[in-house]
């Protein structure tokens, strides 16, 4: 029998023990259906069974294309059963993009005129789901006919829905659509105008308004020639006249909405105490579209209702109960209309209040969650419009940080950062630190799944990132608090964030002015950390980021920390500091991230100038030497070079191992953070480094060394600084030898189009532009020695703060003979006018004393 055989098929599939069993049942059945359907003599009853089985295959996600034609054929039958199943199958198995739809035209045409209203309804449903543009054109008259003649609300609502779809499909149908029908026949007739019909009317009106809106958008985008322009104008006028006609319905729709909202009469439409929220929302959206277009085109017919719509929205906002989800759905729709139409300020504040109300916890947790999600999501969008109103709900937003749902947490975070400003920085930071604390500790408290761990990692990284960025924008002038916050964050979240991020912490810490507090804090941190090492029972926390910061601060501030009055010298002394470094060196020697080793090396080098204990010094040297055979080339290079520096006398070392200057960070392309040194020289570090090393290696006279160290101590600072922070660690050092050997036998000649920009006592400087494009300029400077041989030229260049300068190596070398040239190429990136300040220091005629020439040069070009 019919049911039983479909039933048995379903049972078989469900009863299959293994996936392979199930597969074989399905393939067998599928093949059987395929052959059966090809058989023309099959009775309709059998056909139905097969189509039903086919539909089950469809639900299982199997291929069903072979049944499409048979499904359509079933519609042609006179029996209601066949038609019903045929339409269902057609609706499911076909979609709008298929050519097969043309087969439907005739059948739909017949059925749309069928005396049985259910058959008409089936045809309308199918047409609504599957209407290609051709079908829309061919069958539109039938649908319109139903609208005109039928008085059955059931058919009318289906016809309206279908009509709306057809108008979407083919806009030209709008011209013939009998708009007056809606007002005269439907809206004014109480018996006909059921909720379903009203939903349909809304749908049609929306279809008209949206397609008009689309064509307005399309027209403003495209440029047309005169003829098209005229056509366009005509279309537009016609559209506007249509809108004017339908705008007569606004008062009726408004009063419908208003009465729906205030009364609750019919139990059939009641949803948890709210009268038909579906229709209410649909009416709000329809009206919103009216006003959107009306305000856009400044149509008197629509704008005259503006104030009454404002009033209506206020009424809805105050009367609708927010206790249950349906009420919230309406309130949500109201706020969306308020912000989409950019209504007056009091209404916007009302909207914010509604949304903020969504954030307050309710009894029912899941429903409350959805409302929170929606509220936060919308608030994020509208913050820029009413920042002050959102500010007031900081507490609510902070509460959402502790929601169970990660997506809500994220949105609450985003919103918190969106409302952060100078005034509330402190308050919100405290809140966020609390949040970080909670999330990182909960991570230890119970065994969480990997997903949760990833989630909290994302959250932490996002929070820390945004917080650092905010710290950069707003300084609240309270260095102490900022310092403490930074350290707390590091301690709490060190396990979650990348070492990469620590750079930004270091920059922030380095830029803090209150040195005393900084030293006090670090002194305390180090003491604690050292204590922990001694006390083996203390829980071992592997906070690499914190270690890194401590290593860095030892290198920077060890001398100051030792002198600090809070420091307990029994815990913090030369031996213990070096011991600490040694331990870390051993611990991280084998770790994958070599960044730590880079920091340890630099710190060891810097400490060498700050420590007096002989044994400790030797240990420091051991740390550096221990990496001289490191498999990592960069570390190896660094170790060898540092050892050379290490062995220099203190007087030399002190100069270039000074504490770091303050530096500012520039955000390039939004992601890459470039560091540049704020000061006279922003010379490329590579070069100076090379020079120092060259001198050291070449064992030149001490005089030149002194001269050099006099010349630019800051420069070396910037060098170390960038090295310390460069993500690749040692890359700065690699070209140490190669650059020099290549530089010997090159003579430079002056290009013909270069311009003289400086005429000094000893030097002439020419400038030649290679290339200037937006954001990037490439220049060359040619330095000519006039009457004396010049040695050891040190070019120092500076550009405006908005730009970044890269200096390449001086060619052919730092020494030039009489009448010879040296070439210096400069790359400037950034924006603004091109301006250069250049200082050239040099030695003349083998004279040990250093001389210098300085000049400014402005190009008439902007990048």
């Amino acid at each position, binding site marked *: 029998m019919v049911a039983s055989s479909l*039933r048995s098929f*379903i049972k078989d599939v469900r009863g299959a023990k293994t996936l392979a069993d199930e597969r074989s049942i399905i393939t067998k059945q599928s093949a059987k259906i395929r052959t059966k359907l090809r058989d023309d003599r099959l009775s309709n009853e059998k056909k139905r069974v097969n189509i039903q089985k086919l*539909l089950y295959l469809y*639900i299982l*996600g199997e*291929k069903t294309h072979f049944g499409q034609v048979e499904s359509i054929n079933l519609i042609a039958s006179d*029996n*209601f*059963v066949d038609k*019903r*199943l045929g339409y*269902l199958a057609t*609706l*499911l198995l076909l*979609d*709008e*993009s298929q050519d097969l739809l043309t087969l439907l035209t005739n059948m739909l045409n017949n059925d749309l005129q069928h005396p*049985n209203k*259910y058959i008409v*309804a089936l045809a309308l*449903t199918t047409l*609504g*789901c599957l209407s290609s543009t051709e079908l829309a054109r061919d069958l539109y008259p039938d649908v319109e006919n139903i609208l005109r003649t039928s008085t059955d609300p*059931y058919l009318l609502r*289906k016809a309206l*829905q279908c009509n709306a*779809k057809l108008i*979407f499909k083919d806009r030209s149908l709008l011209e013939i659509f009998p708009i007056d029908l809606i007002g005269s026949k439907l809206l004014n007739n109480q018996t006909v105008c*059921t*909720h*379903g019909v009203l*939903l*349909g009317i809304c*749908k049609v009106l*929306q279809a008209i308004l949206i397609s008009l809106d689309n064509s307005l958008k399309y027209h403003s985008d495209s440029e047309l020639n005169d003829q098209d322009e005229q056509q366009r104008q005509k279309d537009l006028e016609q559209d506007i006249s249509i809108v004017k006609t339908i705008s007569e319905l606004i008062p009726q729709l408004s009063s419908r909405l208003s009465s729906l909202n205030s009364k609750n009469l019919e139990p*059939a*439409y009641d*949803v948890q105490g709210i009268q038909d*929220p*579906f229709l209410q*929302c*649909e009416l709000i959206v*329809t009206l919103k579209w009216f006003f959107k277009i009306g305000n856009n085109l400044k149509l008197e017919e629509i704008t005259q209702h503006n104030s009454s719509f404002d009033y209506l929205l206020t009424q809805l906002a105050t009367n609708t109960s927010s206790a249950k*989800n*349906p009420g*919230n*759905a309406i309130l*949500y*729709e109201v706020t969306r209309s308020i912000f989409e139409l950019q209504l007056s300020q009091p209404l916007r504040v009302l909207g914010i209040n509604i949304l903020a109300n969504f954030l307050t916890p309710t009894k029912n947790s*899941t429903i409350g*969650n*959805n*409302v929170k*999600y*929606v509220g936060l999501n919308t608030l994020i969008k509208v913050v820029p419009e009413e920042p002050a109103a959102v500010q007031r709900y900081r507490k609510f937003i902070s509460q959402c940080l502790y929601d*169970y*749902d*990660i*997506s*809500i947490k994220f949105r609450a975070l985003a919103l918190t950062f969106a409302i952060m400003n100078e005034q509330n920085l402190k308050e919100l930071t405290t809140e966020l630190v609390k949040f970080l604390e909670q999330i990182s500790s909960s991570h230890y408290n119970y065994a969480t799944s990997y997903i949760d761990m990833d989630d909290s990692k994302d959250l932490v990284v996002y929070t820390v990132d945004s917080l650092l960025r905010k710290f950069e924008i707003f300084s609240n002038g309270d260095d102490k608090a900022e310092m403490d916050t930074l350290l707390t964050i590091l301690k709490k979240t060190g396990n979650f964030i990348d070492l990469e991020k620590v750079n930004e912490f270091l920059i922030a810490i380095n830029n803090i002015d209150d040195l005393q507090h900084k030293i006090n804090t670090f002194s305390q941190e180090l003491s604690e950390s050292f204590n922990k090492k001694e006390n083996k029972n203390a829980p071992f926390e592997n906070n690499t980021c914190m270690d890194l910061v401590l290593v860095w601060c030892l290198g920077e501030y060890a001398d100051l920390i030792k002198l600090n009055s809070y420091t307990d010298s029994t815990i913090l002394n030369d031996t213990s500091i070096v011991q600490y470094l040694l331990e870390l060196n051993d611990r991280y020697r084998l770790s994958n991230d070599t960044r730590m080793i880079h920091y340890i090396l630099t710190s060891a080098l810097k400490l060498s100038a700050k420590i007096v204990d002989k044994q400790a010094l030797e240990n420091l040297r051991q740390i550096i030497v221990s990496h001289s055979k490191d498999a990592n080339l960069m570390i190896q290079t660094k170790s060898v070079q540092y050892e050379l520096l290490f062995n220099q006398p203190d007087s030399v070392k002190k100069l270039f191992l000074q504490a770091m200057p303050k530096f500012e960070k520039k955000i390039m392309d939004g992601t890459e953070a470039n560091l540049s040194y704020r000061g006279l020289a922003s010379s490329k570090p590579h070069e100076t480094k090379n020079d120092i090393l060259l001198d050291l290696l070449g064992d030149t006279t001490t005089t030149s060394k002194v001269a050099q160290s006099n010349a630019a101590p800051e420069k070396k600072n910037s060098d170390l600084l960038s090295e310390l922070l460069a993500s690749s660690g040692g890359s700065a050092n690699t070209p140490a030898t190669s650059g020099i050997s290549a530089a010997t036998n090159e003579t430079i000649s002056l290009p013909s189009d270069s311009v003289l920009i400086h005429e000094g006592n000893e030097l002439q400087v020419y400038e030649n532009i290679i290339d200037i494009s937006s954001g990037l300029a490439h220049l060359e400077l040619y330095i000519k020695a006039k009457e004396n041989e010049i040695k050891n030229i040190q070019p120092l260049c500076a550009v405006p703060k908005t730009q970044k300068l890269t200096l390449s190596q001086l060619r052919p070398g730092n020494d030039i003979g009489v009448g010879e040239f040296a070439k210096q190429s400069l790359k400037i990136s950034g924006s603004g006018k091109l301006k250069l300040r250049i200082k050239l220091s040099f030695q003349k005629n083998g004279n040990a004393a250093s001389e210098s020439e300085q000049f400014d040069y402005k190009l008439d070009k902007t990048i």
Partner: protein
Amino acid sequence: MSHIKYLLLVSRQGKVRLMQWYTPLTPKQKTKIINDLTPLILTRKPKMCNILEYNDHKVVYRRYASLYFICGITNNQDNELLTLEIIHRFVETMDTYFGNVCELDIIFHFDKAYDILNELIMCDGSMAESSKKEILNNIHAMDAIQNNDHLDRVLS
């Protein structure tokens, strides 16, 4: 205006029990959506909210006993909260029709479930009728015609 892109009914074991697509998609895209969403939604904890972002649109779901009702909706157009109510309407209507509906009812009488769905949601996924009673009356009327047909054939 509500503009549901698709409605899926998925069991807790990840089996599809019903699907209806209101936008034309290739079979490949459909399979991808099902395969992506099923694990995503089945692993969500009860305390989490019922809205998630997927590709370019939002997905609203709700669990009833062992079945997940999943709706893809259009961003910035659909009302997430209202979509939850539409799902609930659908479930309520089936509940009255089948009398305490369970997963098995939907498995064995998927055609009926589709009939109810088509009365509730039409065209491009827009709500066509908000009254449960009205929908049920029409479904029962159609069932009656179908049975009469049947009876006529047996008699003749």
